[in-house]
């Protein structure tokens, strides 16, 4: 699967218009200079050979050099990745913090006022562009209170936490409606099952019923849903890092794309694809741990 992704990314970027050599050497470079750059980069070789070399380098952790900064793409990604990891982990935690209680309440109060209110806010949340939510939070929270920086990342743990709070909240607001909706549906179907009747018949009720019987069985679908969300979360990271001027890989991709820096775009894309594949694998493992009926076969 991974090799398929590498191939597709490589091929898509082959059709990119523009001469990489011209980009590197500059507008005033002579034809001879350009030829020299092309030789250096192996751009005159057949596409197959270029692809072979690219994959070979990849396996050694070499993602090529940025056209802009001339630095190794792997190093650029390395510098930026911690910000994005911060954003995604905090964002996912906040998503769970928001969506698990709301999903549970909506399911337990199905078709009552609370359920309708939660679903209404869900519709609103689905319709809000993440970057706009970020702008609103900046306007309504960051500017009046002054507690949170309007952009950038920090050095100490406390500063980082402060800088990441609003972006992570933005991410959570965007992704929670899906999770709430899915969790609600999963819980409702669990609550209709016979084993919930069994539990109630021996007197299991209230929080104990929800925790030990309902949530335990709805957790599997919940994790699967969260894994499916990873595509959205990554794109959310791209948009939100740009909104809050966070120097992460998402912002890096945007800067690279704006600057038509092909090796960097290639590197970032592969990174994101890798994350998605890894998250899917991880979710399989976690759901297997949550459901005794599933054996992990590898």
């Amino acid at each position, binding site marked *: 699967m991974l090799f398929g992704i590498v191939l597709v990314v490589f091929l898509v970027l082959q059709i990119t218009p523009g001469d990489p050599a011209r980009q590197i050497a500059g507008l005033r470079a002579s034809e001879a200079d350009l030829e020299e750059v092309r030789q250096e980069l192996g751009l005159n070789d057949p596409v197959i050979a270029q692809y072979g070399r690219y994959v070979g380098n990849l396996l050694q952790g070499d993602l090529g050099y940025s056209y802009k900064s001339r630095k190794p793409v792997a190093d650029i990604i390395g510098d930026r990745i911690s910000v994005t990891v911060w954003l995604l982990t905090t964002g996912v935690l906040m998503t769970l913090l928001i969506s698990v209680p709301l999903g549970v309440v909506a399911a337990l109060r199905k078709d009552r006022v609370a359920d309708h209110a939660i679903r209404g806010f869900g519709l609103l949340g*689905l*319709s809000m562009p993440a970057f*706009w939510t970020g*702008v609103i939070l900046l306007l309504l929270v960051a500017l009046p209170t002054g507690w949170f920086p309007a952009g950038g990342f920090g050095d100490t743990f406390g500063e980082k936490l402060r800088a990441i709070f609003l972006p992570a909240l933005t991410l959570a607001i965007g992704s929670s409606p899906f999770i709430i909706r*899915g969790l609600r549906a999963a819980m409702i179907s669990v609550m209709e099952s016979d084993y919930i009747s069994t539990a109630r018949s021996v007197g299991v009720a209230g929080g104990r019923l929800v925790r030990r019987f309902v949530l335990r069985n709805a957790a599997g679908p919940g994790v*699967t849903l969260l894994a499916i969300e990873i*595509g959205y979360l*990554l794109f959310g990271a791209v*948009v939100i890092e740009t909104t809050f001027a966070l120097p992460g890989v998402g912002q890096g991709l945007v800067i690279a794309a704006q600057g038509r820096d092909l090796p960097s775009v290639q590197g970032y894309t592969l990174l994101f694809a890798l994350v*998605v594949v890894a998250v899917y694998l991880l979710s399989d493992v976690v759901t297997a741990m949550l459901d005794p009926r599933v054996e992990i076969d590898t």
Partner: protein
Amino acid sequence: MTTPAFEAVPEAPQIAEASLAEPGAWKRMPKKVWVGCGIVLLYLLVALLAPVIAPYDPLAIEPANRLASPDMAHLLGTDELGRDIFSRLLYAARVDIPIGFLGALLPAILGTMLGAIAGYFGRWVDTAIMRTADVVQAFPAYILVIVLVFALGQGAGSIILAFTVLAWVIYARIIRGEVLRVRDRDYVQAARVAGLRKMRILRVHVFPNVINQTLVYLPNDIVFATLALAAFSFLGLGIPPPTPEWGAMIAEGQPFLRTNWWFATVPGLVIVGLGLGLSLIGEGLEEGLRA
């Protein structure tokens, strides 16, 4: 029997049992469908009549009057180049709405056709189409849109093409499942006995039955497409300036949040309104067709 519960993804496509073709089907639709239709119609009207309603040329620069506050002359003030924000908002509807609709409609059409073909003909046709779908789905879709737009160059065409290449998969899966379900029902069997050609069977008997499925998903996909377009433009990777576009306007307004807060916030409200209208239609259709 021992199928793990999570194999049925909770938001698995609900089978729409009722058909819109049935008499009275529209009457049974919940009220929210009509509210949603009203909102969307209003947006369409604005897009259509923008040149008539808009007080200014959306591209007309007025450097002497930049970043003006709202007053009677400029209802929402002016931007960094002195362009009338209200007029730009109206004209942006002519960009966002068509791209959002096309960006959802084309993949729906493509996916519906491929899904129907895969489901009906089966064998290698099915295998080929569904394998392709697997590969496409393995990618983080939005990231790939960035790459595709990077490769194809900015602009409306690239964005719509990128959406189409990526978003057909869900439709193909749903429709394929539906076709498989409908295919073996009596009346399709009867039609086959009557010697109808396969394509005609598809068109007359299977298509009307599966079209509901597409309809339920379409409004939500228009929301996604519109939001995505706005996001790409916000990132500077979508519709290039100076064409007015809601997402790009939010980006233009963000640096002036402290002084001209309406600049960045109002275009967002406009997007939310359209999204809400479409979501209401989608949710209402789903409820109405399931009942």
